């Protein structure tokens, strides 16, 4: 009986033309990021359409929920926003997205080609940033501030560095990939020497940064915009981001249209809106990431956001191929293998 009523209601809703675009993302995009502004703008552009954000968990939690829903044949999102570039092979392997149509996304013209990390045309970038180390200038003596990756191995820094787990956090994975890109085959050696200097390898970024703010250790793995954040939000330059030998690992975040959506038109309009100048200029102070639209201006205070001279990245396809092997090797190092 109840089923029948629900069907009647659904039918009525369809007849009345109530349309909805469901977008999965990670929680900070909603709590912190420009989600609300995007919703207001989108609903103004398409009267009668509701944009619904579903954001309960981090990027990897939302992606795995999406994959599971697709595999189980359950109703799911129309768009997924918040795919880290290194996760691209996994998303492609599980056939999560359908290719976008560049014709229907005019704002794509303002996005530099080097940021379009998906050669297969499924996923578009919407912001980018750099994972690097941040130190507490009140706790760390000037002469101990690391200048290169090797400096993190100094015996004076024993138990003074906090990083996150590459298995459970995206900055953690970025750092592992950074060391692999930098040292090549020699990365396990580097990590073996680094381990005694790590006070903790936490599950996620929030725990790590909270510990750092509590003064448990003077160096933490975080983002290159942290100094700008600290300056713009708190007027303080106490916490300073650094590059190591001019390097920091580049993260590009992407969005794509989910394979079985029925709202192709709206989904394309959504991607186009996120790439618009208006929304892109919100990225620096909501996402604390750099915009991908080349015309977007950076706000005052962003001169403290570091742009590394030598951004480091690895081909996502290579990562997809080797990730399991690397993580296995990393795990063995942890237990002294």
């Amino acid at each position: 009986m109840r089923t029948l009523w629900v069907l009647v209601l659904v039918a009525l809703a369809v007849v009345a033309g109530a349309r909805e675009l469901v977008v999965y993302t990670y929680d900070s995009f909603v709590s912190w990021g420009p989600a609300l502004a995007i919703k207001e703008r989108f609903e103004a552009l398409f009267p009668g359409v509701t944009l619904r954000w579903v954001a309960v968990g981090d990027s990897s939690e939302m992606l795995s929920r999406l994959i599971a829903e697709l595999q189980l044949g359950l109703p799911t999102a129309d768009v997924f926003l918040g795919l880290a570039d290194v996760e691209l092979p996994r998303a492609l392997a599980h056939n999560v997205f359908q290719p976008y149509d560049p014709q229907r996304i005019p704002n794509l013209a303002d996005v530099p080609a080097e940021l379009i990390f998906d050669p297969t045309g499924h996923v578009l970038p919407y912001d980018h940033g750099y994972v690097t180390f941040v130190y507490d200038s009140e706790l760390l003596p000037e002469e101990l501030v690391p200048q290169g990756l090797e400096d993190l191995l100094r015996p004076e820094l024993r138990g003074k560095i906090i990083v996150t787990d590459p298995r459970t956090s995206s900055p953690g994975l970025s750092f592992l990939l950074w060391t692999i890109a930098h040292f090549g085959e020699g990365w396990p050696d580097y990590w073996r020497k680094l381990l005694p200097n790590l006070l903790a390898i936490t599950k996620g970024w929030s725990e790590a940064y909270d510990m750092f703010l509590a003064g448990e250790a003077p160096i933490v793995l975080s983002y290159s915009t942290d100094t700008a954040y600290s300056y713009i939000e708190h007027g303080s330059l106490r916490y300073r981001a650094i590059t190591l030998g001019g390097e920091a690992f580049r993260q590009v975040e992407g969005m794509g249209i989910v394979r079985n959506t029925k709202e192709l038109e709206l989904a394309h309009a959504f991607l186009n809106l996120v790439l618009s100048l208006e929304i892109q200029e919100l990225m620096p102070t909501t996402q604390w990431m750099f915009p991908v639209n080349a015309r977007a201006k950076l706000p005052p205070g962003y001169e403290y956001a570091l742009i590394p001279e030598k951004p480091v990245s690895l081909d996502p396809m290579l990562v997809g191929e080797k990730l399991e092997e690397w993580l296995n090797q990393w795990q063995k190092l942890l237990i002294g293998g």
Partner: protein
Amino acid sequence: MIRRRGASLLWAGLPLFVLATAFFLPLANVLLLGLRLEDQWTLARVRAVLADPYVRHLFSFTALQALLSTLVSLALGFPLGWFLTRYRFPGKRLVQAFTLAPFVLPPITVALGFFLFFGHTGYLNHALQKILRLQEPPLKLLYSLWAIVLAHAFYNAPVFARFVHAAWSSLDPALEEACAVLGVRRFRAFLTVTLPLLLPAIFSAAALVFVLCFLSFAIPLSLGGARYATVEVGVYLYARVYVDLPRAAALGLVQLLVTLGLAYLYVRGGGRWSAPQERLRPLPTLPFPSRAAHGLWLLWLLGSAVLFFGPIGSVVADSFTRPLAGRPAGLGWYRFIFSPEHNPFIGTSPLGSIRVSLEVAGFSTLLALALGLGVSGALRVLRSRALEALLMAPLAVSSVVLGLALLLAFHRPPFVYLSEKHALILAHALLFYPFVVRIVRPIWEGLAPGWVEAARVLGASRLRAFLTVEAPLLAQALLVAGAFSLALSLGEMTAAAMLSRGELVTLPLAIYRFLSARRFGAASAMASLLILITVAAVVVWEWLGERSLRHGQA
């Protein structure tokens, strides 16, 4: 006798049916992925998973830390249960309610409390350095196995305290009095009479605590570091990072077999000591403190207060002291979370979050009690220890696997037609009724059958006999079970995240949103609010429950 059995089975059939469709079938669906390979049944995946030396390392470490955590929780929780049973003192109900506070806190908040209190630069080290005039922090507790054990004890000692308290208060005081009359020394009387009668409750609690610690994930990683990973990290890795569900299911299956196997052993072990009880009046309590010997108690209480109130107090203190715009916040973070323009941070108003969380907790608790009683009743008739152990599955399964099972169950008919809120209420009831069973069953088992039979002989129906005879005798247990269920529901995350369609934001989800937005002070304020609401909800629940049960008894 046969008719009674039939009626009881029917009575218990409904909850078991709901459990089967909403939980066990979807769970089996997910786990059996681990036994399939190209449409063939095979153990190949399970064997491959177990052949990995890292997975074996995870299993041995997980078992070790769970064992240590259970023992330390018992050592801390048992005296507290004794204390709560034996003595009365002003504010007792509040203290009791407070012991459930750790239960609702997201692991990330507990980790924060531990950094702030036990950390190298934490309050405790700070105080010790001042008192002892030391240069270096004297306590290096964190980032080791002991930090994990301590944090697990922080969560789980209250389980022992509550279980022991519930069982002890339903003992017949005549037993101890008889010992006193016979001149048996009190310690000997405790060892030979009281303790054996408490063993079922202790085993029951130990089974739960071991399982909870075995599945713990964020605490070992956050307080111990990646060096101290549990099996759950393996499941996470397969399911989330490699997105290889069959492999995750294979590992989840092994993990479930281990936890359920242990639960089974405990259930058997605990059952051996249960003995019928005929209780005529409640156990008398003594005022505290009233004697010089209570000084020792005070010292012990001070020690546990440091462990429990230290981290919680640190989070509360943090909500007032964490700088906001460069200055100590005072009430600033509370104003921040309640101000309308910051609501977009969590997608709802804090009051809305509180209302949703309380509504879900309240209704799911009532439902969990009903399910738990039905299932306990069925187990009294069926006497199947294997089934009893199996019913603990919602607590004994990896949260990653649980999330997938819930996704499968609640996104399909008939449950897909439930609103988001109703789905969450049902899911929480299904997740937390095992607590009800674990608390109620040992005590129900211990009730002498004579009373019910007498009532039946006098013409009472089975239901009436239950309501007038058994329910009042189970009152204490039901109150405790309800309190646990309330607290667990207020703090639950996996189901809340998996079933969310973007409408409900429960309090823990709101905390995570503030954390992910770097509003650490707001997260601490929200966590303090969650503690306050939990304590208040538990106090009101117990007060209402006691009143209505007293009323029913009269």
